């Protein structure tokens, strides 16, 4: 039955692609939750545009993961028919939207990592990943620019906007360590030029983030204990609720299309 949960035959490359696909799908889904709720029409469109960019990236990555896996799983099966523990996204991207400040800060913290990630990935020895990267990099460059402008204005804005984004920074900071998570499986892909060494992105992420926070009159939290787990399918309590909404139609009406 098409709505039954699928099991993914996860080779290292399949897992590597799924991790990035899940980041894009879950953050794109979070942004879609803003539809009809944004503070102004201009940001309603900006949030939807960013969400659609991410869902487009997820589609390309899932399709490729399905080809590499070669078990007949298409993008929909991979997006909708796995269980919670089989999603490998960063904990950061599944965190609830909160207020506009929290959403923009989450976008900024992710884009400051994902933009240089995709830029580096353009040199991947895997031609499909390099092609996806070339498209994603342009999209993430804009997400970074747009979210950074808002971090600046909210931090350096009114007392209330400053307090809200400062709260968001405290709440989201423990999820930033996982951006640079690595394991032996990924290290092997790095060594053959398919994957990007996340450690090589740390300095550029730190410099983007610290420069923006400084300009926004926000003090970066001291680097303390960091949350991890999403990359191996161990999620925060918000994730089950997100999935139940994300998967609802596919689970209710198997193979629904429009």
């Amino acid at each position, binding site marked *: 039955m098409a709505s039954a949960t699928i099991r993914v035959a996860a080779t290292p490359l399949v897992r590597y692609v799924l991790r990035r696909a899940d980041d894009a799908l879950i953050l794109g889904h979070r942004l879609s939750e803003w539809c009809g709720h944004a503070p*102004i*029409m*201009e940001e309603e*469109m*900006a949030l939807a545009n960013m969400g659609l960019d991410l869902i487009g990236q997820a589609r390309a990555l899932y399709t490729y993961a399905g080809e590499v896996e070669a078990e007949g799983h298409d993008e929909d099966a991979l997006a909708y028919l796995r269980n919670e523990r089989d999603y490998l996204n960063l904990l950061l991207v599944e965190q609830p939207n909160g207020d506009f400040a929290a959403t923009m800060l989450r976008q900024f913290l992710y884009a400051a990592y994902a933009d240089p990630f995709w830029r580096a990935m353009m040199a991947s020895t895997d031609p499909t990943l390099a092609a996806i990267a070339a498209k994603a990099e342009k999209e993430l460059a804009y997400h970074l*620019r*747009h979210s950074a*402008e808002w971090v600046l*204005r909210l931090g350096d804005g009114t007392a209330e906007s400053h307090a809200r984004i400062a709260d968001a920074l405290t709440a989201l900071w423990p999820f930033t360590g996982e951006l640079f998570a690595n394991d032996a499986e990924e290290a092997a892909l790095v060594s053959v030029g398919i994957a990007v060494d996340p450690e090589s992105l740390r300095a550029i992420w730190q410099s983007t983030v610290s420069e923006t926070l400084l300009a926004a009159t926000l003090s970066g939290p001291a680097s303390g204990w960091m949350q991890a787990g999403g990359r191996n399918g161990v999620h925060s309590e918000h994730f089950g609720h997100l999935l139940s909404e994300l998967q609802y139609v596919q689970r209710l009406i198997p193979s629904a299309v429009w």
Partner: protein
Amino acid sequence: MPTPNTPIWEVFIRSRNGLSHRHAGSLHAADATLALQAARDLYTRRGEGLSLWVVPSSAIIASDPQDKGMMFEPTASKIYRHPTFYEVPEEVGHM
């Protein structure tokens, strides 16, 4: 919602090289940087643009609709200003 913190901006898009920027619409934004980003997000979602201008609406000096008789009607009787009375010699070809 128009508020004093987000004035109105007019958006102009150039769709191709060689064409002029054309008025596309308006938006609300707190400052020029956000106005340009909002113009991108609102008006160029379907590949409409190669270049964008945003201009504060308050910077536009408009003609008064009350003056339209004086301003525009005198040209209505001057059809000789339209270049339809000139025969183009065949040797010129397509102009």
